[in-house]
């Protein structure tokens, strides 16, 4: 009965420790490590624990099979978890980098995405005249009326049709997106059927190279340049809005991107829009507009990754428990001898725990390293908000690697505790007598 309650108590404590561990910031983790190290150097029981741990670790190579189970099991969990979260992180980063706080996008009220929006040609000059929009040196408002058409291109992988955003822009578009640089060739000439392509599009779709011809809307277009923006524009093709419109029989624009005049520009412009009954438009800074698009998918990936990681972690915990119980059973005489010559419960528990944590740490590092080597910068694409592909890269950030390590150590904690308790409770005389 007493044993049952003490097991129950340790289980509850363990769950509390795990919960605390998950929310623990890295400074505290560091402090905790330092405290344990200090304890092991300064106090007598700490020194005993250190000696016991040394003996355990020295015997690890003899049990390499079982130790490998812990390392590989945990590496698997951390690898899958970090890779999945890196996918969400990469998608989020791509869309968060798109747009800025000093430019705003205007769409027809209620339309949510560019594909659905309509801004008529007579609305465009009305918008340009509103307050809150920055003006160029020549006195013209910095605005870019834009049109985006979803077109079919062949994917590089298997040639299947994918939807790609073909964006028609106004002459000020380059000034509105200063992060966008031409890396090969030149900009398109307004009025001609010329295209510049994003470097992500070039990587993911077939037959995209400077000098090549593309057939879109039954017309031949020439690719004259490649641009890099390191954001979601990288997945697009760009041309002159006044060439794209007629090619697809589109009289109206779809969106209007404007440069805001200082910090108060957004408020001014929003108020002016609300006051003008001819302009039923929604306005958002481009940064807000694009970051919002990543929310749903990022959340979904995070939930999926955590659930899959949790199920795998449960499997890995049982694997670790198994190996450590076997290790304790295999070293029963050794441990009993230690206890007979005066090693108390705490040093013995610490020794087994530290051994498990060390293996877990190795597993976590290996898993994180594998995820980083295989997936960091790995380019994929998915269908974004505008019915078109958004190309993005997996991003293994230090935060993700850190949370992977935390998972690994958490698994080690659970997997090590019960075998450690068993080692400390081992009846000394029986264990010494056993062959």
């Amino acid at each position: 009965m007493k044993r049952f309650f003490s097991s129950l108590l340790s289980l509850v404590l363990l769950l509390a420790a795990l919960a605390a561990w998950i929310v623990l910031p890295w400074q505290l983790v560091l402090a905790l490590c330092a405290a344990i190290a200090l304890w092991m150097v300064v106090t007598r029981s700490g020194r005993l624990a250190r000696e016991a741990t040394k003996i355990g670790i020295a015997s690890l190579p003899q049990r390499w099979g079982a130790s490998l189970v812990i390392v590989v099991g945990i590496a698997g969990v951390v690898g899958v978890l970090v890779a999945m979260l890196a996918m969400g992180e990469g998608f989020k980063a791509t869309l968060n980098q798109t747009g800025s706080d000093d430019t705003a996008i205007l769409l027809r009220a209620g339309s949510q995405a560019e594909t659905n929006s309509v801004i008529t040609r007579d609305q465009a000059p009305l918008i340009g005249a509103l307050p809150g929009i920055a003006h160029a040196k020549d006195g013209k408002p910095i605005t870019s009326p834009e049109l985006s058409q979803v077109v079919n291109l062949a994917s590089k992988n298997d040639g299947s049709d994918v939807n790609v955003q073909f964006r028609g822009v106004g002459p000020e578009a380059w000034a509105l997106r200063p992060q966008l640089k031409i890396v090969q060739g030149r900009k398109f000439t307004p009025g001609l059927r010329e295209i510049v392509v994003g470097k992500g599009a070039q990587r993911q779709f077939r037959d995209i190279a400077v000098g090549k011809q593309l057939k879109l809307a039954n017309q031949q277009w020439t690719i004259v340049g490649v641009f890099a923006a390191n954001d979601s524009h990288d997945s697009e093709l760009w041309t002159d809005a006044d060439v794209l419109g007629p090619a697809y029989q589109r009289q109206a624009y779809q969106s209007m991107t404007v440069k805001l005049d200082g910090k108060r520009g957004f408020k001014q412009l929003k108020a002016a829009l609300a006051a003008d009954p001819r302009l039923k438009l929604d306005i958002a800074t481009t940064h807000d507009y694009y970051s919002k698009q990543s929310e749903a998918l990022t959340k979904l990936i995070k939930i999926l990754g955590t659930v899959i990681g949790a199920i795998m972690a449960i499997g890995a915990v049982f694997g670790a428990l198994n190996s450590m119980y076997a290790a304790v059973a295999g070293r029963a005489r050794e441990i009993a001898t230690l206890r007979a010559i005066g090693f108390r419960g705490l040093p013995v528990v610490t020794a087994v725990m530290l051994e498990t944590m060390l293996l877990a740490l190795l597993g976590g590092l290996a898993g994180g390293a594998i995820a980083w080597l295989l997936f960091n910068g790995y380019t994929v694409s998915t269908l974004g908000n505008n019915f078109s592909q958004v190309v993005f890269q997996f991003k293994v950030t230090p935060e993700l690697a850190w949370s992977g390590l935390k998972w690994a150590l958490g698994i080690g904690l659970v997997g090590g505790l019960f075998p450690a308790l068993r080692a400390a409770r081992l009846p000394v005389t029986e264990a010494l007598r056993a062959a």
Partner: protein
Amino acid sequence: MKYFHLIWAALFRSKTRTLLTLLSVTAAFLLFGMLDSVRVAFNSGGDVAGANRMVTMSRLSITQMLPYSLTEQIRAVPGVKKAAFAAWFGGIYRDPKNFFANFSVSPDYLDLYPEFKLPASQKKAWLEDQRGAIVGASLAKQFGWKVGDTIPLQATIFPTKGSNDWQFTLRGIYSVDDPKQKAQERVLFFHWKYFNEANDYVKGRVGWFIVQPDKSASADKIAHAIDKLSENSDHETKTQSEAAFNQAFAKQFADIGLIVTAIMGAVFFTLLLLTGNTMAQAVRERIPELAVLKTIGFSNRSVLWLVLGESVLLVVLGGVIGLVIASVLVPVVSAASGGLIQLPGMLPQTWGLGLLLMLAIGAVVGLLPALRGMRLNIVDALAGR
């Protein structure tokens, strides 16, 4: 089979170890069951046995609409039995988070989808009401809609008389029996005629055509003939089978098959190592016992089978428990997501693949220990050498 109790006893010789290994195997197959049903749900859109429908849409882009006048031309193509059309509407019910597909359709649209079960009286009521709509059972359940309710939709693309507010009267609720096709119950249909009259932007345009070919006709030939109708016009079409279209579309989101395979690869690799280690340990501990078995007349081969049987039993036992838990959990997940995720439940094919994997893994991890047991030299083993 007569040795079953022997294998069983050997398996539970070390209870803790077997239990912990079993639980690891269970976790692995639980994950497998859930991920595989996600994969099936994602990849089986429109793949209805015997339906062989085709989709005709703009070759230029998914958002490009086609002229209504194509309808009669397509119906006149030899080999075409029926042709209906639909147009994407993109309405939002209250909040963008409540996303579901809604589109306007021709009155004969449901004739091409016999798997959508709609009571005849409701169908009649819908066809008679210009502003009527029908929805799938899952959707009606999620939002608590009853026949006769008014459903307001906020247009994102097509305003009506300058406003985004559209209202429809719910006239019928259809259901789909096939568990793989439950996602089809998350659609709202209304009349294209009403859409065409009431929206401010497009007139006489439809989104895509659904074509039902005659049984004897060649689908390729029909697709070619339909695409020929609009060749070199500004609305060139592309006709393909519905299954091919759905698969290509799903693949644009992500190659779910590849992701699932990668994750399960990592899981099963770990599992191989773990159960392999358990079996190696189990045999190492029992070497004297195996020697005794051989002494009393068990052949080398029966010892091999005994150990192999033990490892297969271990994996199958854990795996079946995992799949059973998955089959309980999958409907729970579907329900908890408020109908947003429609998983088909555990299908026979998932069970089949799972069992195959269990047998394979059990055999692989058992092989080396089993060979060791088979090659055991009785004298050495008994002497503890």
